[in-house]
């Protein structure tokens, strides 16, 4: 069943004289429980696409449906409620409140949904256990490692049980060990909790944890591969092949 459906989405920047097509007529669907990676070189439009899906940016043309709601038509309060209740965000630079402890950062996502203090406590503790951050709950972001910060940010993203988790280069600021640990957690959330995840990355290793990879070039979908029954290693090799096909830009990131 399609959870997310993009129909001919376009996003243009600039004016008539110099027009940049950041996203040029992209359509695809994401099923419930899928772990999708979007790959592409810098400037290929992958982050713009994610911003459109996350309603942070507005599309120039086309429609994006989450379940049956056309999210390109949402405005004001409805938009805020949509972000609050249906989406979970994970950013490259964590975006944690430096004034709040890990616990409070995670709780914030719930308290702005006006959940009761008792619920908040229960949910925060259980999500912390799943992501292995129970012991850092009372620490401030400046007291944590990058990997811990990103897991706290992930906990904040999923604690509200969103329909869709959006991750923008989640491993970008992590060392390889922390990155691996985070991605394994993503896989766990995807398998055990049926979480639908869309992740933007330029890193083939990171992408190999997904069940499906979309390649974007010059604002268009260039290729798409599914993991199917492959092992992660095999899937990684397939990704590398496509990346090589894509040429120059992405290989820099390898």
């Amino acid at each position, binding site marked *: 069943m399609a959870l997310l459906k993009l129909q001919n989405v376009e996003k243009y920047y600039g004016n008539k004289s110099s027009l940049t097509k950041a996203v040029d007529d992209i359509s695809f669907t994401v099923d419930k429980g899928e772990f999708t990676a979007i790959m592409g070189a810098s400037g290929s439009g992958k982050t713009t696409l994610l911003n459109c899906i*996350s309603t942070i940016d507005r599309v120039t043309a086309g429609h994006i449906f989450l379940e049956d709601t056309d999210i390109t038509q949402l405005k004001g309060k409805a938009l*805020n409620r949509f972000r609050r*209740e249906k989406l979970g*965000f994970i950013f490259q630079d964590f975006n944690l*409140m430096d*004034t709040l402890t890990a616990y409070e950062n995670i709780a914030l996502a719930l308290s*702005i949904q*006006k959940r009761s*203090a008792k619920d908040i406590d229960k949910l925060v503790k259980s999500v912390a256990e799943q992501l292995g951050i129970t012991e850092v709950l009372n620490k401030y972001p400046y007291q944590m490692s990058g990997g811990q910060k990103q897991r706290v940010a992930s906990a904040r993203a999923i604690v509200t049980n969103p329909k869709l988790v959006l991750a923008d280069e989640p491993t970008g600021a992590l060392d390889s060990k922390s990155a691996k640990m985070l991605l394994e957690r993503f896989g766990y959330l995807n398998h055990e909790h049926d979480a639908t995840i869309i992740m933007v990355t330029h890193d083939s290793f990171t992408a190999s944890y997904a069940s499906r990879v979309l390649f974007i070039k010059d604002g268009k979908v260039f290729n798409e591969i599914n993991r199917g029954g492959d092992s992660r290693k095999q899937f990684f090799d397939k990704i590398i092949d496509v990346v090589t096909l894509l040429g120059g830009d992405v290989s820099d990131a390898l």
Partner: protein
Amino acid sequence: MLFKISLSNIRKSLKDYAVYFFTLVVGVAVFYVFNAIETQTAFLNVSEDHREFIKFLVQAISAVSVFVAIVLGLLIVYASRFLMKRRNKEFALYMMLGMSKWKISALLLCETVMIGIGSLFVGLLIGVGLSQVMSAVVANLFEADMTSFKFTISGSAIAKTIIYFGIMYAVVIIRSGIVIGKCRLITLMQSGRRSEKITMKNPWLCVIVFLISAAVLGYAYYMVGWNQMDLGPSKILAAIIMGAVSTFFIFWSVAGMLLRVIMSVKGLYHRGLNSFTFRQISSKINTTVASMTVICLMLFVTICTLSSAFVIRNNMNRQVEENFPVDFYGEMTHYDADDENWDHPYYTNLEKYYEMKGLNIADDFKEYYMFHSYSDPDFTMFDFIGDRMDEFTSENQSIGVMSDYQNEIVKLSDYNELAKYYGRKPMELGEDEYVITATFSGMVSVYDWLLADKPGITVFGNTLKPRYDKSCYEIIRPSMQPLNAGVFIVPDSAVDENGAATAMVIGNYDASDKETMAEAEKTAIKHFEAARDEFYSDGEGGHSQYYTRIEAANDAIDLGALVTFLGLYIGFVFLVSCGAILALKELSESSDSASRYTMLRKLGVEEKEITGSVFTQSGIFFLLPLLLACLHSYFGMRLAKFMLSMLVSGGIFKSMLFTAGVVVLIYGGYFLLTFIGSRAIVREQK
């Protein structure tokens, strides 16, 4: 090139500079308005009596201006230093690009000069406009007519403003030059790395410090609020120091406790944005304890100054009406040349001196009454206090009856005659009874304390007992304020005519309108002065004075105007300073946290809630020092009321309302400005 860079710098950091600029403009305008009073009043048709006073007012304002300039100077230096700190990164970039320190200093000079000239120009423009309004206020105060009024610009006030503010700007320039000269590139570059460390103070230490400070503050409050009798200058100073120090520690401990207290209420802390909002507030207070203290104390001084000024002003006219119920009053008393304290008066014949000049006192008035007060060398203040002397001195240190003067006595028949003039009920007195009249509240409390013991007195050999156990609030001598420091009323039979001393006369002129009134007053004064000359030149020592209802009313207006002007001047400048410091801090804080709000928005927080959070943050930041200042002021005003008791008999509430109005206008204005500015900063990151 330099000019271009500095211009674009100012334009770029307009939001940071807006409050600074606004404050400079207000400062310049206020400074001009008050210093231009002399010129503004020159064209007003102010009567001769007030003209003299306005000269004095102008001098007083000049003196206060120096103080005001120091306060404004400190504010400007503080604000500029604060703004410079925010630009460390920018300076680091210039230095890395190879700009010399001289160049950077020149750049800052350029900016300061531009802002200085701009603020002086705008401020003077607004000041000139406002001072026309000031003319109307002055005219209204002094009941002058404005027919010959024209638009005036005071060159001297402009020059003075430019010189004073020029000096302040020069100090700023020199200071920033020194700072730039001393700084190192590495510290500049690292200054952007804000220490994000959140230090939680030890909660028990906070509680203990809070309790101790509260206790010390409570004791200081008790000293000034209730134990005033016992208060000398050194104790007042001690109370002020205790208050200031405990204010600092209360802010220090509240900053540590506030968050803990709110965090302990889980339901409240984890509701909406509360956790975020209170963390923000807590870190803000934590880093601004010192400025909060200074602001709180300045607000306290402002509220007390303004309230006292308004109290005095509001009471003046009513007090003249109450305490000067006749048109004219004069007195003459002989004292021995060596009686320096005028403790032992003896007989004076006032009418005789009129006659010596060939004048008849009856000609000057429609109705008048002449009488003597009496004095018994064996009935002094110390005699009256009697064996309660030790108790008296230990309980009334501040009042302290300085010398052993002879009590003043008035016959019952004379008093009842006076009562007719004053519109009071006649008094009834048994043959062995006496009554004390007093209106001066310091002495009223002394007499009430003494009369509670029902002391008998011996006057000219007659023993009398008190009719009441309290003094009576009655006037003997007309005055501008309640100044009757105690006169005994005794039955006529108890008085020995040989004890007659001070001669007094009160009277009403034979006049129906303002002009004839003024004419009659002139004659009465001329005649009394002529008689007084005779009195002074007859070889005996003595003292004579007169006072009239018109003079009292004019003096009341003058005194009211003086305190109002000075109170408003100082109050304005203090309020502006407080508001400016808080606004600068809050606005820079908002732009530092702008990214946090972007984050909140991404999490799907409603715009309304973000605005609410910004409002709560600025609100608490502004409210906290004001609240404590209000508390301070409540007790401060108790002392002020006590010390002003000579001038004040009521109307505190109305004055507090006026004060609240001024505070809300300026301080509240800064709050509004801050809130709107913060909201804009937080919003634009969309």
